[in-house]
């Protein structure tokens, strides 16, 4: 087994683009779930808003790439209102049901033949990100050449996306940190702890929740944008229902209601994921993993096994350490009702 390359890949995953876009998505989810106690199970929908906001600039609107983020944020506001208006006055699980449904419907719509004209169907959208790349090139990062030292080696393309991505993580981390210390943030946390008490103080709980949902969603759009920019394409299946849950697992791993948790969690999540994946793939490369005569895992089954482990870790985290590695048990949204 090639341990050197396994550890190198693990280290790379620790700071790679996957950790970046998960961290941004987790920061958004943390605003909603960690700080306000809103169960948004449709963060993937907001991420799709981001990706399609960028992609549609060239595919449908035929305007400058730089309008993309604004279109994306517009989409996110609309989606947030669509999810929030019917549910935020009701019990927490209604929001979960509507958000999961909305995210799934968004995926169906963007991959449909009917709306191919707008969203590119199941092939998605390609070739919209030249303007973004050109900026990197103008700053002296050559797309084709390699940068960094082993194992942290990236092509210029990857490096430029990573730099912008980590800058965004830092920016949103700071924004969330400051917001949650502000009077506005304290209202959100108070809503999480006791909605009725906040209401009795004359605050418009519904409106605060709506702001939190939309703010978290708007942050989430940037996760979708970073993924689309890294891949150079927008693919509907990158924004499937389960992506939200992987982000949630990464967030809970790091710790809810903590900015540090929502950044370190995704890094650890992807490092572990990459490590397990690489080990299993190496082990099954020359034939199935077996104990005696019993075939355990064939090389084609490595993917599902890894995802099973994600599901199992989410379950175990919820039972034994719902506050995650860095979270504070007192700041838990989980036992609200």
């Amino acid at each position, binding site marked *: 087994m090639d341990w050197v390359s396994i550890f190198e890949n693990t280290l790379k995953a620790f700071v790679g683009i996957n950790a970046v876009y998960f961290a941004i998505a987790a920061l958004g989810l943390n605003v909603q779930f960690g700080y306000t*106690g809103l*169960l948004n*199970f449709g963060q993937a929908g907001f991420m799709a808003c981001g990706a399609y906001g960028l992609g549609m600039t060239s595919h449908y609107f035929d305007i400058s790439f730089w309008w993309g983020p604004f279109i994306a944020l517009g989409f996110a506001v609309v989606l947030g209102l*669509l999810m929030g*208006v*019917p*549910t935020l*006055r*009701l*019990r*927490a*699980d*209604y929001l*979960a*049901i*509507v958000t*999961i*449904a*909305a995210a*799934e*419907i968004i995926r*169906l*719509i963007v*991959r*449909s*033949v*009917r709306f*191919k004209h707008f969203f590119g*169907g*199941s*092939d998605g959208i390609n070739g919209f990100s030249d303007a973004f790349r050109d900026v990197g090139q103008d700053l002296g990062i050559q797309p084709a050449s390699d940068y960094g030292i082993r194992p942290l080696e990236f092509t210029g393309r990857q490096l430029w996306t990573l730099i912008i991505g980590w800058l965004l993580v830092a920016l949103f981390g700071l924004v969330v940190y400051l917001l949650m210390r502000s009077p506005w943030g304290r209202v959100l946390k108070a809503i999480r702890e006791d909605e009725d008490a906040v209401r009795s103080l004359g605050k418009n709980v519904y409106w605060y929740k709506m702001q939190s949902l939309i703010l978290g969603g708007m942050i989430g759009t940037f996760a979708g944008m970073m993924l689309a920019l890294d891949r150079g394409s927008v693919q509907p299946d990158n924004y499937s*229902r*389960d992506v939200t*849950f992987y982000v*949630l*697992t990464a967030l*809970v791993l790091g710790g809810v209601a903590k900015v540090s948790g929502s950044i370190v969690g995704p890094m650890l999540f992807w490092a572990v994921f990459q490590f397990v994946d690489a080990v299993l793939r190496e082990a099954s490369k020359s034939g199935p993993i077996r104990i005696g005569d019993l*075939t355990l895992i064939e090389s084609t*089954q490595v993917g*599902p*096994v890894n*995802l*099973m482990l*994600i*599901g*199992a*870790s*989410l*379950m*175990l*985290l*919820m*039972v*034994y350490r*719902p506050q995650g590695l860095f979270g504070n048990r007192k700041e838990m*949204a*989980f*036992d*609200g*009702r």
Partner: protein
Amino acid sequence: MPKRLFQGLLVLVMSLAAALGFASAAMAQDSDLSIRVQVRDQQRDEQGRPDNQPVAGVTIVLADGQGTELQRIETDAEGVALFPLPAKADYVVTLVEDTLPDGQSLSEGTVVEQRIPADSFTTSTRTISYFTGSSQSATQSSLEEVAQLTANGIQLGLILAMCSVGLSLIFGTTGLTNFAHGEMVTWGALMAYLLNVTGLGFLGFLGFLPLIDGDGRFQILLAAPFAMALGAALGYAFDWGIFGRLRRRGIGLITQMVLTVGLSILLRNAFLFQFGGRTRPLKDYTLQQAIEIGPVSVTPRDIVITLLSAVILVAVAMTLQMTRLGKATRAVSDNVDLARATGIDTQRVIRIVWMAGGALAALGGVFRGMTEQVGFEMGSNLLFLMFAGITLGGLGSAFGALVGGFMVGLFVELATLVVPSELKNTPALVVLILVLLLRPQGILGKAQRVG
């Protein structure tokens, strides 16, 4: 700590047992004879390249050499309809042009009806491709179409209602929204597949019995009740191994709900691990000739399934309404503390609700597997329709789940009159949002504070 660890291990072992429970041999069926029909859109983009989008939701009809209809399937998200075949023979494949998405028609040179002679099977899978392009003609909705869709909708609605009863009752009695309920549906279908298609080789000695063959394969009539029992067992295992323990430890409902999400991911991928990503048909009653009843064309299998579903749902409703257990269930669902104070063993009722819900979900899965095909995601794809149904009917009410599930199924099918069939789940979201805006307690829910 050892006790906690024990519980954690128990959860893991249970789920892995669930994963590996149906022997690895399940995958040996891939070489079976079949006709694979794929529909692709060849609309050209600005550069003049065909884009080859798969076209979903197109009805493909398989007929034998004499033109007698055997089976009709809708293409899936990959634009593929797969017909398993008993033997090499002459077949005719026909694409039903009315079911193409609006604004699409077959491209020039593509024939609607394609004959497949028996000697053209060079490999076990014969692939037929249809190519479509865009056109301006919109499909017309006729009375016949409405009748056909109503028939389909009744069937889907009854299956949805059956699957949702458990979801709603578990919510009613414990307050838990179970996001792993879709996997309980899939479980039933997969168990039926294991018994019906893969077979339990070690039961081959029972081959002298009716409905069991020498390889330990159960006829579906026998496999379905066993799948129900295994569904009940899964429900029992969930409550005994996981949720009962969490309740006793006083773990919050939101925590439990997020846990069900993890459970759903775990089980779904365990199914994928064992069963693979392909959808496969069950063995019996797959190739049937549709009969015409007035404007509606429906197979005898679907008629039986529809009638059976209706009978079972009536039985469920009667049980809830008339028996002691049913009354106890409704009492717990109404108010747990009051029910306990009147001497009802609430934990026992909850355990039974999990089991009954699991059994009904499993049977729903078997029926769905018979009318469509069996796949690892079939249940989770229904989950959102189930949620729409029980929200419409009133969360926590069993009768609400019956009525709501049925209405959503009917509505989703009828909506394809206006919505392209690849988007036919979309109207369910509209239903969900409208219900929550206008009457959040649902049709049959009590007007209480739900926020």
